[in-house]
């Protein structure tokens, strides 16, 4: 019973972390939209005095459009993530899971002065819980980002042979993902570390 409660708490904590990070990002988007909308008002006042060049208007409205796109991306990812626990078992596309995990962990990485690169040219489908696969990938990305800091970007790659998600820190940086081995097992996978800066989530059945 305790294990069940602990697992449930950990899942809830993960959901909370992801939501907090995404909503914080959205507040930043809104702050930039707010400043640029305000700037357009300021520029209208300048226009009344004949002190306005049109390029300033174009620049401010362009920044608003960029932030709308950014905000849309954050909400789309958050919505995809919110639907991951809808079914306990489904076909999980590893490339999609990698992109979602990278997007959800981007702010975490940014706060540690690093970034996340993705390579989803090769992919496979596994049967399982998309929520658990994404949680595991995010967990490993966070450990790798914590270790990498300013050494360079971390990466996540989906591969078909073996059926896996590979997480890597820059060479020379080592990280230990073994604490997430039980989570990998519950997601129907195992963790394989071929080098100190590299951990693969290897799935048993394709």
């Amino acid at each position, binding site marked *: 019973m305790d294990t069940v409660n602990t697992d449930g708490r950990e899942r809830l904590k993960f959901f909370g972390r992801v939501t907090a990070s995404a909503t914080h990002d959205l507040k*930043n988007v809104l*702050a*930039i939209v*707010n*400043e*640029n909308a305000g700037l357009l008002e300021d520029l209208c006042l300048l226009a009344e005095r004949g002190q306005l060049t049109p390029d300033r208007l174009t620049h401010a409205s362009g920044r608003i459009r960029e932030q709308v796109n950014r905000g849309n991306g954050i909400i789309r990812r958050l919505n995809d993530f919110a639907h991951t626990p809808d079914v306990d078992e489904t076909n999980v596309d590893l490339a999609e899971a990698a992109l979602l995990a990278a997007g959800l962990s981007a702010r975490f990485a*940014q*706060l540690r002065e690093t970034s996340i690169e993705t390579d989803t040219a090769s992919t496979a489908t596994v049967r399982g819980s998309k929520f658990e696969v994404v949680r595991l990938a995010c967990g490993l990305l966070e450990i790798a980002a914590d270790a990498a800091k300013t050494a360079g970007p971390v990466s996540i790659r989906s591969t078909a042979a073996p059926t896996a998600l590979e997480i890597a820190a820059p060479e020379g940086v080592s990280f230990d993902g073994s604490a997430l081995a039980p989570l990998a097992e519950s997601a129907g996978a195992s963790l394989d570390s071929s080098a100190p800066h590299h951990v693969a989530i290897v799935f048993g059945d394709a």
Partner: protein
Amino acid sequence: MSEKVLLIDDEPEFLESMGERLKLRDMDVDSSTNISEALDKLAAEQFDAIFLDLQMPGTNGIESLKMIKKLYPDLQVILLTGHASVEKGIEAMKLGAMDFIEKPADINVLSEKVKKAQAKKMILVEKATEERISSIITGKSW
């Protein structure tokens, strides 16, 4: 006299647009996207107020506030944050922040805070000058 403000935030688009709006309000604005660059600017120039983002890459906003207040106790620091919890607000005020504001913020409120910061700074400078003069007068054997 125009107010001199330093904006510290890791979002360049935010710095650019907010900076432009404060400049349109006749303020002298500089900005930094990271704390080490901001510390260099604080060492080189005097500012009436700084706006500091609470969550910046590689640093904790509260730790940055502590560092800045230790180096420049009279500097007026206004914290800007995406999520203003009561606990963080109290902690920041205890550490000497002048104010704690949640994003998105109203430019008129921010401008008012800068004017208050400049007035506070002037009072502190005058007080320090008076104390220096008093110490010279009382310490001198006429």
